[in-house]
């Protein structure tokens, strides 16, 4: 009896300690709030909000329905390797500000993880396409699935934004491999560097199966590790695009053999079949297939290889010559794109549902991001809900002012 009273007193003390310093980062696991709730039934209302927004389950493989709406932490190690170039810029800024990277677990990502867990690696790669309005979280859902695959030790082939390749390219060289196509040395070499950081351990294991001659003096022999090709591309910027092409070809060929599993993740895949703003010297426009990188990437997202999965997003942000309100896959991909990607599984990413919205607000409140005095009141929340229409991107932009 006394022990029970003492326990009650202790837990009450702990809860009051919790209430006193809301600024501390509290990693209350999913188990903790349940036992707290058992002891403090009259204080459940104040305790559970804090627990709603976070979960201690940091392995995406174990994320399930019960974690929906909660934020999980991505370690800095993973950030440096897996997400060296993948995260959207505003999220990177948020990570720097909060000094931690927390991603919300949401239903579209959970759905995709469920499919990925049940993939049959003998069947051809299935294509999944995230689509949704602007700011709903397609890129972050993609990053969630990339994190999962990285933890499961897949080889990640991540193109952070395919739109960057079809616009604003300063130097276009005529391709050394095929005279009709064009090379983009700068973009290719940056991508190769990031690819190397993401998949260090694989590069020494995978061996090329053909001899590649770069120029009169240099060549890569058959059987040498893929890392050599990547190094060649990084060092000799002129051959970077060809190096990328070789990497893609080799990975596609060898993933079917089962040594490793390949995840191809492309953000903004509608750039592959759209138009470009690049022009030749005589000001005539260049079609996407005349860019060597796009040509190779198109081959990559075809489902004629086994042993992996292809996860894509279609986005209007950054797309060329598409209206602002367009978000449906057929609108953004066009006829050519749809025919090329058919059959695929479209996954809709929508705005936050009320639970996720609450969770997001609590996460911001915890990190002291919302400085406005009315931010934590019910009215303030209703105002934010109305202004942002539960759109994650919009909410993030609004809260940046508060």
């Amino acid at each position, binding site marked *: 009896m006394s022990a029970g009273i003492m326990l009650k007193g202790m837990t009450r003390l702990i809860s009051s300690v919790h209430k006193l310093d809301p600024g501390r980062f509290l990693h209350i696991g999913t188990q903790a709030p349940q036992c707290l709730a058992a002891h403090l039934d009259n204080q459940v209302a104040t305790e559970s909000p804090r627990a709603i927004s976070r979960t201690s389950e940091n392995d995406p493989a174990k994320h399930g329905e019960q974690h929906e709406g909660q934020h999980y932490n991505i370690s800095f190690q993973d950030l440096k390797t897996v997400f060296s170039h993948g995260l959207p810029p505003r999220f990177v800024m948020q990570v720097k500000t909060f000094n931690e990277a927390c991603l919300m677990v949401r239903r579209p990502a959970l759905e995709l993880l*469920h499919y990925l867990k049940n993939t049959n690696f003998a*069947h*051809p790669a299935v294509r999944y396409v995230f689509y949704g309005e602007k700011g709903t979280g397609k890129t972050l859902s993609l990053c969630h699935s990339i994190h999962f695959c990285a933890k499961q030790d897949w080889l990640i082939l991540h193109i952070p934004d395919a739109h960057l390749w079809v616009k604003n390219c300063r130097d276009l060289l005529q391709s050394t491999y095929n005279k009709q196509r064009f090379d983009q040395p700068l973009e290719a070499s940056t991508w190769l560097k990031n690819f190397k950081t993401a998949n260090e351990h694989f590069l020494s294991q995978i061996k090329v199966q053909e001899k590649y001659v770069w120029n009169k003096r240099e060549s890569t022999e058959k059987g040498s590790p893929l890392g050599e090709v990547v190094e060649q591309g990084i060092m000799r910027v002129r051959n970077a695009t060809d190096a990328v092409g070789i990497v893609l070809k080799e990975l596609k060929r060898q993933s079917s053999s089962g040594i490793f599993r390949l995840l191809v993740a492309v953000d903004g895949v509608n750039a592959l079949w759209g138009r470009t703003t690049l022009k030749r010297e005589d000001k005539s426009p260049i079609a996407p297939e005349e860019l060597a990188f796009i040509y190779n990437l198109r081959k990559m997202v075809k489902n004629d290889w086994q042993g992996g999965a292809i996860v894509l997003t279609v986005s209007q942000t950054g797309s060329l010559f598409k209206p602002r309100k367009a978000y*449906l*896959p057929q*609108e953004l991909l066009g006829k050519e794109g749809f025919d090329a990607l*058919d*059959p695929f*599984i479209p996954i809709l990413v929508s705005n936050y549902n009320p639970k996720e919205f609450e969770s997001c607000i609590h996460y911001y409140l915890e990190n002291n991001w919302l400085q406005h005095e009315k931010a934590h009141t019910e009215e303030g929340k209703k105002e934010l809900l109305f202004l942002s229409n539960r759109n994650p991107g919009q909410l993030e932009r609004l809260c940046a002012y508060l």
Partner: protein
Amino acid sequence: MAAARLSASLVLQPRARTLRAFSTSVSPATRSPRPSPSTTERTSRYGRPLRRKALPPRTEKMAVDQDWPSVYPVAAPFKPSAVPLPVRMGYPVKRGVPMAKEGNLELLKIPNFLHLTPVAIKRHCEALKDFCTEWPAALDSDEKCRKHFPIEIDTAGYVSAGPSVRNPKARVVTLRVKLSSLNLDDHAKKKLIKLVGDRYCKSTDVLTIKTDRCPLKRQNYDYAMYLLTVLYHESWKTEEWEKTKTEADMEEYVWKDSSSEKNILETLLQIKAAEKNLELSKEELLGTEEVEEYRKSVVSLKNEGDNENTLSQYKESVKRLLNLT
């Protein structure tokens, strides 16, 4: 003025009597019967023919329920005294109002239709009825009219009170016909729609031909009928070059021989190869229920465009095809 004159003449008279010897010629003239100042008839002292004072306008004698068509039986210029309306027309001067109808040239210049009031027109129709035949009793509903007379011709006549009865706008003839009432098969219908272009409205299935290139209405009507005949016969013919119709020319999505079919076939073949299940042939693969559903969802997606319904249908069918849970 007249009174002053009278008193002057009265004063003059005694002087005239005293000076009788010198001014006998003056008095008879001044002594002639003088009219009283209250009468409106003006006299002239200088020998011009007398003019009658203007009578009150006819409008004052008009009853409210009078017979208007007898006032204006034919097209006539505007008579302010015969029209009882207080009409004003004209640009007003500063701090003024438009000019009244009396003596208003503007009202005279414009054509008026005072002879065509509803009462007058009713009377015309009554008079014309004797020359008309009965409406056929069998055509008592719109549908029956449309069924027996599928072609509808619209013409417009113009009436103007001006120097000439001709109006160049009267030669326009519009021919409207529903394509469902024409005997067209699938190829003929598609060809006809392609030939006429914008003149066909998809939602109401009506072909509209508007002609005005001939000077007379009669000629335009003949031309419109000729166009319809030519279109009908041409669309039934199949030319040599129609065989080269490509996918881009198609009006709606056709599943057969499309790239979607090829893709799905390849995918399924690869799946079967992976499972070492090579017994099924191409036709059998295409004939399964899942492929059928997939085909339907792709066709609806392409024809209707993206919406939640079609996309979720597509998703389900793909999941079932690829055996994902």
